[in-house]
């Protein structure tokens, strides 16, 4: 485990990955932290899979550098031979500590036990130890006792979970998941979400891609959007919490010390999403139809393109995008008190 303040888990610089002559990924600078769930979202072909394969050292970038705990995994594909030699230690470390689960399960022919025990076995565990680890991994994905089933006789959701167990059996510190819920039905999706939550709670770093925003919001500690191979932070307030109360008009969602009114909906919601540009800042309470008015204190303000991003602590930090002119007019500065106003209907529950 790295101590806080040391090198991030992964750091990427000046990365250009080409695939069949097309640049599929462009990362100027990106750090990924240990111990959190990072979710990559984006359209098909936006470079999510390429990024995961690069992180695991399965492919080399055309240009640029990837470091794992400060050690280069791959560098400058142009000087591939020397780059690869220099990267040997970082690559060995990343292979030892991380595992990628591909989008399609790609199970081996044979039993489930053979599949899940393969990783420990090839990494040097004895037959008995591999079997024990396989059983434990299967238990974690809710398939205890499946060891002797044939891999070819499983349902789609079961296959996906066996693929997950196969990766978990090597006790990875970093779990890379490519679209773990793409090929499964709603019920299995919930199951896989619970497994990922559980794995993360046990201290494993998770970096996953998905195009299911529901899953992304519910699982992420950090959400990154890939647009045509360029990653960007998502400009939304993603608030973790739970519903405290529901009346006939509103659901009252508690996040931190703030309670937010949302359109009344029944369900097991754990996240409220509030786009940063739906927030209005003012010095005094507004006389408006908006149903949420929270008092807060500005803690941070920084430029974001032509706009300013203000972080306001209302019991939970809220990010608001405002124009420079507006910021000056109402005197937004760190330490200033202000009122944050937004409509209940601007809040989406997941």
């Amino acid at each position, binding site marked *: 485990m790295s101590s806080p303040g040391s090198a991030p888990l992964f750091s990427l610089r000046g990365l250009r990955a080409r695939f069949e002559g097309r640049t599929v990924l462009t990362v100027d600078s990106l750090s990924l932290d240990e111990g959190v769930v990072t979710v990559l979202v984006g359209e098909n072909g936006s470079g999510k899979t390429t990024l995961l*394969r690069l992180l*695991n050292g*399965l492919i080399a970038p055309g240009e640029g550098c990837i470091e794992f705990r400060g050690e280069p995994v791959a560098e400058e594909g142009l000087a591939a031979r020397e780059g690869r030699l220099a990267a040997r230690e970082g690559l060995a470390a990343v*292979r*030892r500590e*991380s*595992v*990628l689960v*591909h989008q*399609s399960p*790609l199970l*081996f*022919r044979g039993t489930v036990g053979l599949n899940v025990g*393969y*990783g420990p076995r*090839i*990494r040097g565990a004895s037959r008995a130890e591999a079997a024990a680890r396989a059983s434990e991994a299967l238990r974690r994905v809710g398939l205890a006792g499946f060891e002797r089933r044939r891999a070819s006789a499983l349902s789609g959701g079961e296959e996906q979970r066996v693929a997950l167990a*196969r*990766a978990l059996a*090597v006790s990875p510190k970093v779990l890379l998941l490519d679209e773990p819920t793409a090929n499964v039905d709603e019920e299995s999706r919930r199951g896989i979400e619970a497994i990922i939550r559980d794995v993360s709670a046990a201290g494993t770093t998770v970096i996953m891609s998905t195009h299911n925003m529901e899953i992304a919001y519910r699982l992420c500690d950090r959400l990154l959007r890939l647009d045509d191979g360029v990653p960007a932070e998502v400009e939304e307030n993603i608030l973790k919490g739970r519903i405290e109360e529901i009346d006939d008009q509103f659901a009252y969602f508690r996040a931190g010390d703030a309670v937010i009114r949302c359109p009344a909906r029944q369900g097991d919601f754990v996240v409220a999403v509030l786009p940063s540009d739906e927030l209005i800042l003012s010095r005094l309470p507004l006389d408006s139809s908006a149903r949420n008015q929270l008092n807060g204190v500005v803690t941070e303000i920084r430029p974001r393109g032509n706009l300013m991003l203000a972080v306001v602590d209302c019991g939970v930090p809220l990010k608001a995008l405002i124009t420079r002119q507006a910021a000056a007019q109402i005197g937004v500065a760190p330490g200033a008190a202000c009122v944050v106003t937004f409509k209940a209907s601007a809040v989406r529950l997941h």
Partner: protein
Amino acid sequence: MLIALRRFRGRRVLLAVLTSLMALPTVVVGLIVYSLVSRAGPLGSFGILFTPRAVILGQAILALPIVVSMTASGLSSLDPLFPEVLTTLGASKGGVLWMSVRQARGAVLSASLASFGRVVGEVGVAMMLGGNIRWYTRTITTAIALETSKGEFEQGLALGIVLIVMALGVNAVLHWMVRHE
């Protein structure tokens, strides 16, 4: 030879050549190897003509294209991401190769059976390179050819039945082994 997993320049040409070599007439292989290993040939100093070694060499040349091209097509039917899955789980290059062959074992089995079939029932190479020497390089096929030319049909037929039973037996055993792996 199992570089079937890789895509390299000239791979298709190589596979095409191998496929056509599968149809190589056995007497031609016999003739070529004969000219190589006969006393006056480039490999004549080894003195292996009319020994079991010469027969083995000839038969290996016959079997090789079958084994290579059928194994290659079996391996390329695996998912292209398959080696990557093995790598991320911790397999070395050798481990990837071994597991790939095991996963494609149906194709590997067909390859061995096809080459066994070609070799076991073959007369040309055995006759030309072995010389059909009694108790030394006489094979069942050359024995059948001899008995038939002597007019001993019963003897030839009996040997033929032995050969067929043997071929069936080997097939059955190999199939059973793959089924119960």
